[in-house]
């Protein structure tokens, strides 16, 4: 499988060289059309980045993409590159978890991890549980995800399934959203009833309404008899049942325009190392179609997980046999490893370029779906071999329906990433002045 054609790549590389004179002209807010929904996408890749090969050069509006970001050249005017932010809450030393666990748990929540049972790699920290609060994607979904069939979708590419290392997304403290690593299961869940005949669908909905009403009643009755801890558990479950009921009444998707039922993915060992690129492409394609059909407006694509150890055996001519996380611990003097980690991040950027390209293929008003989408690219670490949380390699892509002024390279001096989380809310049209732990937040991020 080859998600990015050689031609696209060449075009991209050339674009980086020749596009500079046009950049100022291209710096603008995206072509917004309020007839189309805004979408928010989290794009996660793990184990840190190689900053010197990631950071652009130049000024805010007149910059040259780095080696790692070069594949994004066709979309340079759709980007905001954020250098110099710190995951301060994750970097704070007294709380549970190692640097990976904290980086992962705080990335979207902005709050410390809870106590738990995973020791991780920090010998002096308390063992970690899961994150202690709602993640920003879910806070946004609570506002903009109420009318679609799915409030949000969480797609994994060989993502883990347990502990703080595994999850990006939380509906509340200790309530992680599992990643679905199997494109066939995503297909079944998201698209199975697309195009089913109206009468059959109406019958199914009526049945589910009767059943879920009764189910919800029994949770309510039980909840009243429980002590506070068990009650919280049962009430949380009940709220997901209520939510499911609510979504039965959403109109669902109509095939037509850019929305079509995608082909059912073939059977595949989704956790086999070398199937990683194939699974990734399937998940990206399914997500783009879910967005085009307006089945959801909030989603995450999580590649691996924190401490992900996929072996990038497919990088041409490299013969890599070690895992991503294993290599990320090597010191800077191991130049071969730094080169491989750079190439891994280049590969990830190529996938992002493909994804942005697919979004840009879908016309919406005078622009494309990319203009109405905000993609937040994040990592749990800044640099793997020192486990740092500064400077974080954050990047935004897409116009957010006019909410974001793109084509910019912004630099900061250690500002807390919680401020960025506030701004993500605001850019998506959700009011907020603080997010996560207020001790690590001073308000919306400057310049955005």
């Amino acid at each position, binding site marked *: 499988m080859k998600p990015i054609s050689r031609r696209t790549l060449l075009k991209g590389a050339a674009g980086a060289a020749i596009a500079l004179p046009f950049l100022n002209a291209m710096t603008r807010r995206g072509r917004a059309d309020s007839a189309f929904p805004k979408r928010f996408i989290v794009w996660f890749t793990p184990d840190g980045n190689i900053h010197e090969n990631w950071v652009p050069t130049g000024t805010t509006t007149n910059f040259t993409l780095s080696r790692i970001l070069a594949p994004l050249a066709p979309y340079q005017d759709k980007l905001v590159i954020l250098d110099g932010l710190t995951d301060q809450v994750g970097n704070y030393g007294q709380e549970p978890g190692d640097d990976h666990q904290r980086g992962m748990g705080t990335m979207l929540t902005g709050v410390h991890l809870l106590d738990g049972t995973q020791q991780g790699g920090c010998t002096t920290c308390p063992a970690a549980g*899961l994150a202690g609060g709602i993640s920003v994607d879910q806070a946004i979904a609570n506002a903009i995800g109420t009318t679609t069939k799915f*409030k949000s979708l969480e797609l994994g590419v060989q993502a883990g399934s347990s502990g703080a290392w595994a999850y990006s997304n939380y509906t509340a403290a200790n309530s992680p959203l599992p990643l679905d690593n199997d494109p066939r299961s995503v297909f079944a869940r998201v698209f199975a009833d697309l195009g089913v005949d109206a009468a059959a669908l109406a019958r199914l909905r009526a*049945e589910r309404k009767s059943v879920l009403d009764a189910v919800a009643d029994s949770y309510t009755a039980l909840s009243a008899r429980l002590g506070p*801890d068990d009650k919280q558990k049962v009430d949380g479950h009940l709220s997901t049942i209520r939510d499911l009921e609510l979504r039965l009444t959403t109109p669902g998707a109509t095939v037509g325009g850019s929305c079509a039922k995608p082909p059912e993915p073939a059977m595949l060992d989704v956790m086999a190392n070398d199937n990683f690129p194939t699974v990734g492409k399937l998940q990206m394609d399914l997500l783009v179609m879910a967005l085009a059909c307006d089945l959801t407006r909030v989603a995450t694509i999580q590649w691996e997980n924190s401490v992900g150890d996929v072996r990038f055996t497919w990088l041409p001519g490299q013969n890599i046999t070690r895992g991503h996380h294993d290599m990320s611990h090597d010191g800077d003097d*191991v130049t071969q490893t730094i080169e491989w980690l750079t190439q891994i991040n280049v590969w990830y950027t190529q996938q992002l370029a493909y994804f942005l390209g697919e979004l840009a293929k879908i016309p919406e008003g005078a622009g494309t779906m990319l203009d109405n989408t905000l993609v937040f690219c994040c990592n749990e670490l800044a640099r793997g071999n020192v486990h740092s949380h500064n400077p974080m390699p954050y990047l935004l892509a897409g116009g957010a329906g006019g909410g974001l002024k793109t084509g910019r390279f912004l630099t900061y001096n250690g500002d807390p990433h919680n401020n960025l989380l506030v701004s993500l809310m605001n850019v998506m049209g959700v009011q907020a002045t603080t997010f996560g732990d207020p001790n690590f937040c001073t308000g919306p991020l400057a310049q955005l």
Partner: protein
Amino acid sequence: MRRTRRSALGPLALLLLVGPGCLGQIGATKQETGACGGAPEVGATPLRRLTRFEYNQTVHDLLGDTTQPANAFPADEIRAGFDNNSAVVGVSPALTEAYLNAAESLAKNAMLTPANLLSCDPAKLSGAADEDACATQFIGSFGKRAYRRPLSDDDAARLLAVFHAGRTAQDFATGIRYVIETALQSPQFLYRVELALPPADGAGDLAPLDSYEMATRLSYLLWSSMPDDALFAAADADELKTPDQLRAQVMRMLADPRAHGAVAHFNQQWLKLDKMSSMEKDAKAYPSFNASIVPLMQQEVQQFLEEVMWGQKGDLHELLTAPYSFMNGQLATYYGVGGASGSDFVRVDLDPSRSAGFLTLGGVMAMLGKADQSAPVQRGRFVREQLLCGMMPSPPPNVPKLPPLSPDLTTRERLTQHDADPACHSCHRLMDPIGFGFEKFDGAGLFRTSESGQPIDDSGEIEDADVAGPFTGAAELGEKLSQSLFVQKCVVTSWFHYAYARLEAPEDQCTLKTLSQKFAASGYRFQDLIVALTETDAFRYRRVSGGAQ
């Protein structure tokens, strides 16, 4: 703030001479003071939800369904090594959807053969009264089995209303289908609700279980599934109260094949056997290994554990020293041992001087080996964590590179840096010297006597344990571990975590002490430990504070 580090070992912690901060422990036990046998004490007992494994077993026993629908659920969160921990982890929207889908497909399957469920023939029903009578009868009998106790009036009325909704929408069978779908998503099915009895006078916040709740505790501990007819009958007669009544049930249940599946599920998690299915080996390093060996190794390990858990001896010493295994012709040929031919697995006796029971099974050595070399660190870590219940941290940042594989260096020589560099040594001393004891088994589980042209040195040392000291070879290591108080205690603690689906609390010290005493008195027999797990305060009572009122 709080966050003091606490030891789960009680007085044994005094024996630990641990490098600063390297070795972690989970759970909390207060210093053992005072005698046990007084008023019962139990740690908090949060509400439990069926695991995927339990869900599959339960719908099999409830409906005869063999489709294992829970395999499509999001994975259970693993805490402290097990999938059933009851600490609060929220139900995700995806899981709620999965419950809905599973309930629909189970109900549809069940209604393919309504005669298995209904006391009436739907084709011969005449009129609403007839239908209601049959539906009511079904709700009472099916509902009791699904909710694992007789239905309350409210529960029965709710299910009858759902039946009427389905009957109105289409027909009688649809109404029954709605009832099944509703029951399978209700908290009384998905959760282990324990609310029947209040605390006795003077018992503080400790409440006993009624006979239905006790039947359910027994069936999920021993079978990972719902109670059978005999347990329901005992509960109906309220005959699950006295120690003798419970013991009689426990002995009956241990003799049922379902107990073997449940114990295997424990072992699968305790001994990290899931790793076996993802084993890949380098064809250049291990040319005789191929993918067809993996399922044979898995069967070997399963049959060995089956023998150790349920056979004549059935004890910890057997687990860690037994000089035999189970193989068919292909696997015996792979290992280069005689004693088996053909496709059936048979018991094969092995050289006792090479064997450490489970630990030196080829599949286990391969599972704990790297793709192209042995792995003393991983093997030592396994012993340290799974058998000694220590928690090792992940490697720190900026790890210096070890020398690469080379024809001139043995694995042991390549790891000398762990000994020389103090930063490495503080943790690796707890793993590598144990793992060196397995060096006569290569990364693919094959016995060897030399590496890189040099004879294998499989001498090692256990540090920071009651059996600390040097040893030579896996057999001596296994013998030492089998005599270790630390290992014995670790087995008890691991079973506690699994059986009660929670970590130990300070109030559980007498439960743990009783378990350890009974395990010791039995000669460390696993079946006796399982019986003992049903005789503790933790099993016989629930705490109402915070949890159910």
